[in-house]
């Protein structure tokens, strides 16, 4: 394998690595024999077993709680810059998470090396290339790094399958770089978790998303009712309604927003703007309900129903309940 060393930045929440970190480790194993993880979390050591089982031989871990008291981007970029200097990885992979983007963006500027974001695949052959999808996933673009090392790539979640390597727990090597006093200029004073009423958008087997065609923010309740009737379902939204302030940004599916790959995706009153479809066209099956028969979403749908969403949704809730008995 051509790459000497590949690092994966692992977001850790309560000792659990983010799914995207495991996906990236699985991919990294196909690019290099030396795959290592980096994490900034007081609970990082608890993740060593799972990271190791997906291919990380070593886990560089910053467990100083000070990293959790400030915005992670700046101090993590500082620490990573010195680690990169010392260990010289060829490629750094980040998941396209909030912290991942913050750290990778600052690190690229600090090291003066290019960063390619929004990646869907990464390959090595006469240099590292990253595939991205642009213009609403109508074009696939391959971009090659030709700047200095390391190459920094930010990859969208769910681009690869997380596959166990059966490896032993990663060997934990402490990151000892202290958090510089100046980074206390941006403090995290509280962390608030949304109360989740069902499965996470990215993990739900059924995702029901609403758009402008719902007509009014209060009609999102109909989607919630349908999600509850189906059971293992989550509710998402198009950018248009997030921009309009109907629902929070965290519900947005699309290029800006989350990528979902459920067994069934139900697009309700969504026209199918390219910005949206890139986040959902990987679904195994797509159902679209829209009153405009020319809506582009119907080109993607396995089942499209042209009609009034406000009439169909209540009927659908009843139909689903009837079938579940």
């Amino acid at each position, binding site marked *: 394998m051509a790459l000497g060393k590949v690092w994966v930045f692992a*977001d850790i929440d309560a000792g659990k690595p*983010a799914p995207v970190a495991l996906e990236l480790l699985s991919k990294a194993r196909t690019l290099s024999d030396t795959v290592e993880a980096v994490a900034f979390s007081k609970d990082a050591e608890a993740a060593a077993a799972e990271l190791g089982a997906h291919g990380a031989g070593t886990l560089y871990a910053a467990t100083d709680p000070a990293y959790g008291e400030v*915005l992670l*981007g*700046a101090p993590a*970029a500082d620490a990573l810059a010195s680690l990169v200097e010392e260990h010289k990885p060829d490629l750094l992979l980040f998941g396209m*998470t909030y912290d991942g*983007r*913050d750290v990778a*963006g*600052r690190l*690229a*500027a600090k090291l003066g090396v*290019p*960063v390619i*974001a*929004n990646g869907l695949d990464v390959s090595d052959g006469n240099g590292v*290339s990253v595939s991205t999808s*642009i*213009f609403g*996933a*109508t*074009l*696939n673009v*391959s971009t*090659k790094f*030709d*700047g200095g090392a390391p190459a920094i790539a*930010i990859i969208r979640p769910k681009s690869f399958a997380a596959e166990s390597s059966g490896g032993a727990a990663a060997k934990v090597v402490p990151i000892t770089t202290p958090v510089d006093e100046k*980074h206390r*200029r*941006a403090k995290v*004073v*509280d*962390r*608030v978790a*949304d109360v989740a009423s069902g499965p996470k958008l990215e993990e739900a087997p059924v995702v029901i998303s609403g758009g402008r065609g719902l007509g009014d923010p209060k009609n999102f309740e109909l989607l919630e009712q349908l999600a509850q009737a*189906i059971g293992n379902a989550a509710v998402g939204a198009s*950018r248009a309604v997030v*921009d309009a302030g109907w629902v929070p*940004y965290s519900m947005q599916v699309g290029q*800006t927003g989350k990528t979902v790959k459920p067994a*069934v995706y139900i697009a309700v009153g969504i026209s199918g703007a390219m910005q949206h479809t890139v986040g959902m*066209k990987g679904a195994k*099956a*797509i*159902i679209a309900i829209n009153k405009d028969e020319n809506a582009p979403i119907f*080109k993607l*749908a*396995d*089942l*499209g*129903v*042209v009609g009034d969403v406000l*009439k*169909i*949704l209540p009927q659908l809730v009843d*139909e689903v309940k009837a*079938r*579940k008995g």
Partner: protein
Amino acid sequence: MKVVVCVKQIPDPNSTGQLDPQTHFLKREGVEVVMDPGDEFGVEAALQLVEKHGGEVTVVSMGPERGLDAVRKALAMGAAKGILISDEGLRGSDALTTARVLAAAIKREGFDLVITATESTDGYTGVVPQAIAELLDVPAVTFAKSLELDGSTLKVKRQTEAGYDLVEASLPAVLSVTAGVNEPRYPSLKGIMGAKSKPLDRLAPADLDLAGAGAATAGQTITEVAAAPERAAGEVVRDEGDGAKRIADFLVQRKVI
């Protein structure tokens, strides 16, 4: 307080963009262009801050001549001054180069707060705000879903995977705002007329002491562009009262209920 907002003129996100088959640069000819819809939230956030706390909004953009439209729109919304950095050598700039140019222009102008969107709606790299912050050596308070300024402390709800973080940052800082953080105003007729007489700086990279910051020094090259495989079309039916039933049947067939 001096607030600098970064804006970008982009191909209309509702049209299908194209890349020049030879250069792999964005085709800008014959394409409708608009101010990135994400940037309207940044401009609005800046205007609300100076309306409440005093100060002035400067809007900065890097891009071709037509980027002027986005700058003018921000001026029409209420920004006091515009800066456009334009140069043929900047075509095809990557995220880092873009950040270098913008950071240099912002530094030249002076700032207490820099506001950006979370990412552009055409390039989507989503790392320019953080890179600008690093180059300016200030905090990057990113993904704000709400914000307020208390004295010189910025209080922000920052979107996270799980919910949000409450972040307090001292100025100067870079702030990136998510869509929906506010309700962007429409430029008034008076605003549009007034925009024409507002100061506008036209800069080239040479003014910023940046040596050839464009494609020539970009550390990445597009090597291949191909049409993405299309999904096979399915069945589209008109609802004749049985639409819901057909969907429920489909859900059963897919074993999700």
